[in-house]
C-alpha cells in the first residue's frame, strides 16, 4: 500500500501518541479530509453525544428523576408526559435510567478494545516480524480462538472472572485479541518486504527500533478501522453479558440488565421496559459502526468510489 508510507513520518516514538496524532491529523488536515465524510461525522456526533449524556447523568440531580432512589411513580405505567419512557415495577422512572444506563457499556467497550488492541497488535508485530516457529504457534493459537464463537467465549470468561466492569473488560478484551493480531501481522508481513525497512536495517537499526518506529506506525490505519467496528460489536457483547446477568449489580441502571428485568413483564405487555434501553444500544453500536465505515472510506478512498 503506497499511501501508507507517509505514516513513517510520525516522529514521536510512543505508539499511543502516534495514534492520537494520527486522529488529529486525519481530522484536521485541510478542510478536505472531513468534507463529504458524512458517515464519519454522523458516527462521531452520535458517540460524542452518548459519552456526554452518560457522563453527565452519572452526576446526581442531572437526570429528571433519581435513577435508583426515586420510587414514587405509579407502577408499570406506559410512557406519559411526566415519565417519557414509562415506569418500571419498582416505581422508578425508565427515562432517567435509560439516560444513565450506558456507563458499563462505554467503560467496558473502551477498556476491552484498549486491552485487545495493545496485546493483539504487539503480538502481531512480533509474530509477523520474527516469523519462524513462534509465528506459526501464535498464528495457529489465534486462529483457534478466532474460530470459536466470541459470544460464548466472553460469557464463559466472565463466568470465570466474576460479574462486574473489571471482569467484563478482561473477558471482552481477550475475545478481540486475535482480530488485532491478524490485522497487524498481515500488515507487518507486507511492510517487512519494503525497501525502506531494508534500508533502515542496513543502517544497523535494532529489531525493536524497526518495529516500533518504522513498521508499527504503518499498521495504524488498519487498526483504527478495525477498532471502531470492534467497539460497535463490544457494545452488543456487553449488553448481552449484562442481559444474562453478568454486568453491573442491581439497582445500578444498565441497559442490558434493565432489558432482562423487563422480560419478566413482557407477557403483560409492558413493552416500554425493553424497547427504550434496546434502542439506546442500537444507536450507540451504530454510531461506532458508522465511524468504522467512515474511517475505512477515509483510509481507502477506492473503497468508497467502488462502493463495495
Amino acid at each position, binding site marked *: 500500500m503506497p499511501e501508507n508510507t507517509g505514516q513513517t513520518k510520525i516522529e514521536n516514538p510512543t505508539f499511543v501518541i502516534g495514534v492520537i496524532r494520527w486522529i488529529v491529523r486525519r481530522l484536521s488536515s485541510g478542510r478536505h479530509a472531513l468534507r463529504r465524510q458524512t458517515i464519519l461525522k454522523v458516527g462521531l456526533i452520535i458517540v460524542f453525544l452518548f459519552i456526554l449524556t452518560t457522563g453527565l447523568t452519572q452526576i446526581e440531580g442531572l437526570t429528571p428523576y433519581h435513577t435508583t432512589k426515586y420510587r414514587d411513580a405509579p407502577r408499570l405505567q406506559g410512557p406519559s408526559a411526566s415519565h417519557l419512557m414509562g415506569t418500571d415495577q419498582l416505581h422508578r422512572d425508565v427515562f432517567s435510567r435509560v439516560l444513565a444506563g450506558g456507563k458499563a457499556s462505554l467503560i467496558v467497550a473502551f477498556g476491552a478494545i484498549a486491552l485487545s488492541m495493545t496485546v493483539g497488535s504487539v503480538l502481531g508485530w512480533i509474530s509477523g516480524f520474527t516469523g519462524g516457529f513462534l509465528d506459526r504457534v501464535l498464528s495457529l493459537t489465534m486462529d483457534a480462538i478466532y*474460530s470459536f464463537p466470541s459470544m*460464548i467465549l466472553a460469557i464463559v470468561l466472565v463466568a470465570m472472572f466474576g460479574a462486574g466492569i473489571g471482569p467484563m473488560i478482561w473477558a471482552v478484551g481477550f475475545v478481540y485479541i486475535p482480530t488485532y493480531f491478524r490485522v497487524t501481522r498481515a500488515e507487518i508481513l507486507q511492510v517487512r518486504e519494503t525497501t525502506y525497512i531494508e534500508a533502515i536495517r542496513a543502517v544497523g537499526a535494532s529489531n525493536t527500533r524497526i518495529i516500533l518506529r518504522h513498521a508499527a506506525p504503518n499498521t495504524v490505519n488498519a487498526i483504527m478501522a478495525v477498532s471502531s467496528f470492534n467497539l460497535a460489536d463490544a457494545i*452488543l457483547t456487553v449488553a448481552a453479558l449484562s*442481559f444474562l446477568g453478568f454486568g453491573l449489580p442491581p439497582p445500578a441502571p444498565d441497559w442490558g440488565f434493565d432489558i432482562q428485568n423487563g422480560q419478566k413483564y413482557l407477557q403483560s405487555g409492558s413493552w416500554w421496559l*425493553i424497547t427504550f434501553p434496546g434502542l439506546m444500544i442500537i444507536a450507540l453500536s451504530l454510531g461506532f459502526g458508522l465511524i468504522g465505515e467512515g474511517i475505512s472510506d477515509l483510509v481507502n478512498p477506492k473503497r468508497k468510489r467502488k462502493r*463495495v
Partner: protein
Amino acid sequence: MGGISRYIAQRLLLTIPMLLILLTLVFLILRVMPGDPVLAMLGGRNVSPELIEVYRHKMGVDRPIPVQYAEYLNGIIHGDFGKSFRTNKPVVWELFQRFPATLELAAFGLLFAALFGFTTGVLAATRADRPIDHAVRIFHVGSFAMPLFWLGLMLQVLFAVKLGWFPVASRLGGRIAFTFEPITGFYLLDSLIRGNGEVIADIAKHLVLPSITLGFALTGLLGRMTRASMLEVLDQDYVTTARAKGLKERVVILAHALRNALIPIVTVFGLQFAILMGGAVLTETVFSWPGVASFLVRSIEARDWPAIQGSIVFIAIFISIINLIVDVLYSVIDPRVRY
C-alpha cells in the same frame, strides 16, 4: 476421485492440531486462569475448608496441572466429559439430547439469513447507486448494531403477546408436548414422519420467531457480501455473453451471476457458523429453546463446572468439523478447485 479422498485425509490430519490447540485453550482458560472452579461452583457460599477439599478432589483439581491435562484429553478421546453436578447424568448424554434442537434452530436461522441476505444483496447490486441500493446498505449496516436478545424480545412482544400469531417461546405447545414422541430430536422432521397436521403446524409456528432472531445475526453480513460479490461478477464477460445469448435477465442474474457470486461467501461459512452459534446462546435463552447453548448458560448460572467444560469442548469439536466440511464442500461448489 482419488484426489479428493486424499485431500479429505490431509484436511482431517490438519484438523487435529487445530482441535488440540482449541481444547488446550479451553483447558487453560478453565483451569489455569485466575478463578477457582471449586470456589466459583460453590458461589461464595460459606462452606468449610474440608468440604472444599472434598470437591477439589471430586473434580480432580487437586492433582498437578500436567496430570489434569492428560486426564482431560484422555476423557475427551473416550467421549467422557464427566458428569453434570446439576443433573448427575453424563454431560455427553445431556449434550446429545439437546444438540438436535440447536441444529434445527441453526438450520432455519441460516435459511432465513440466506433468503433475506441473498435477496437484499442481489436487489442492491442490480440497482447499484439507486435509492433502493442505499436503503438496503443502510439496513445491512444497521443490522450489525442489532442486539439479538432484544430483537427476540421485541418479536415476542409484537407477534406473540400483542398479535398472538406465534407462540412466545419453547419448541412445542403445552398440549402437544404431552403426547409428542420425538424420533430423531429434530421436531419438524419428526412431526413430518408422524404426519399429524396439527403437530406439524404447531412445531413450525414455534420455529418462526427464533429462526428470524438467530438468522438476523447473519443477514447483514450475507447481504453485504452478496452485494459486493455480485457487483464484481456482473462485470464479468460470461454475464455479458449470457445476456447476448438473449437469456432472460432473471436467468442471467440467478443462474449465471448469483451462482458464481456465492462462491466467496461459502468459503467463510465456518466463521459465519461461529457467529450463528454465538447468537444461539442469546436466542435459545430468550425463547427457552432447549438446546446446547441454553444448556451452557444454565450450567454457568448453576456453576456446574463439568457441564460448562463439556459444552465448550463439544462446541469446539463441532466448529472444527464444520470447518472441515466447508473446506471439502468448497471443491464441489467450485469445480475449478482441484486437489
